[in-house]
């Protein structure tokens, strides 16, 4: 029997993030900075939504449910302690690291300026050209760190899928996984929480798109 582990919002967030970060990377490489800034703005909106969803979303998306201390990580990794549905304690560390580094990429991008002083993040007018160039440099460094984390993320999924035989990718697409003894599905969020989260996310994305135009 299957149980539900990821709500639709969490899954859509995840895959939208994959597509948009990929698109942001490509648009920069191809020199389409206007598209790069739009993609970044939408990623920022997604991140605002995710933080909201981490507070008021479905049970498996909530930080209070999946962020555990170092002891829980130790027990999970070395003692094989069961962790319930959703992110395991080690995976939770990876999720938080990914979210933080994406936040850093966005934060630096908001202030970044290109070498010609032509293209710039929406808040670069608050700082000098030199500071903007530094922000641009840090934006790139943070992205390199993100690339490393993404590689680690994919390797970990490969390990769980192939070695531990847990269909993680299927779960992130369908939201469901085979139930183990005593496991219940996620507790879904309220509709109002979803609506407010969507409004906050869209407002952020829209605002940043307007500001960076």
């Amino acid at each position, binding site marked *: 029997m299957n149980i539900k582990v990821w709500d639709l919002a969490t899954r859509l967030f995840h895959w939208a993030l994959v597509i948009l970060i990929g698109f942001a990377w490509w648009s920069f490489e191809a020199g389409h900075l206007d598209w790069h800034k739009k993609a970044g703005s939408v990623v920022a909106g997604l991140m605002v939504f995710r933080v909201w969803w981490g507070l008021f979303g479905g049970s498996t998306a909530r930080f209070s449910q999946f962020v555990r201390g170092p002891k829980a990580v130790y027990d999970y990794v070395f003692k094989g302690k069961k962790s319930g549905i959703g992110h395991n304690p080690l995976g939770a560390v990876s999720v938080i690291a990914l979210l933080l580094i994406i936040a850093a990429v966005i934060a630096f991008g908001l202030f970044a300026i290109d070498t010609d002083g032509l293209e710039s993040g929406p808040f670069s007018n608050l700082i000098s*050209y*030199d500071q903007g*160039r530094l922000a641009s440099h840090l934006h790139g460094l943070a992205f390199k760190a993100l690339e490393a984390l993404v590689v680690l993320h994919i390797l970990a999924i490969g390990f769980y899928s192939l070695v531990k035989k847990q269909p993680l990718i299927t779960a992130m697409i369908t939201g469901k996984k085979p139930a183990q003894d005593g496991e219940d599905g996620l507790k879904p969020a309220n509709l109002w929480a979803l609506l407010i989260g969507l409004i906050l996310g869209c407002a952020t994305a829209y605002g940043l798109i307007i500001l960076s135009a």
Partner: protein
Amino acid sequence: MKLRLKPAYIIACAIGLVATSALALDLASVAHDRKANMKTMGGAMKAINEQLKSATPDLGIIKAQAAKLDAGAHLMADQFPEGSGLKVDPKSEALDTIWSDKAKFKQISDDYVKAASNLNIVAQAGNASALPNAYHDVGQACKACHTQFKKRDEH
């Protein structure tokens, strides 16, 4: 005989060393000044861009920055002597093609100087409607040269 020549060799070597290191120092300072000039011009581009995007652009700022840009552009002709790239500055982003394809570099940097002069003329005349295009042309000229002759900006 050999012994008597030795001091002469030493002096010759010393002069040679001093001369080459003075030259290298000179090239290094040119590279340093060039970098500073590029930053000044980048800052001017940023400042003008902000005014052009603003709902209430300050023509005074645009005039001052356009003048700065024009002056910087005219300095560039003397700021790319051969050997002032990676040889004297390991962090230099000036590619060797600047000196291996001098004709192309000259043409493309002349285009930039022209565009910067034009922007300054338009700005000083207070010709607000022509400013965006003039600015755009300078930007394209910056890019054209950087794409070919500057180490690719990784971020």
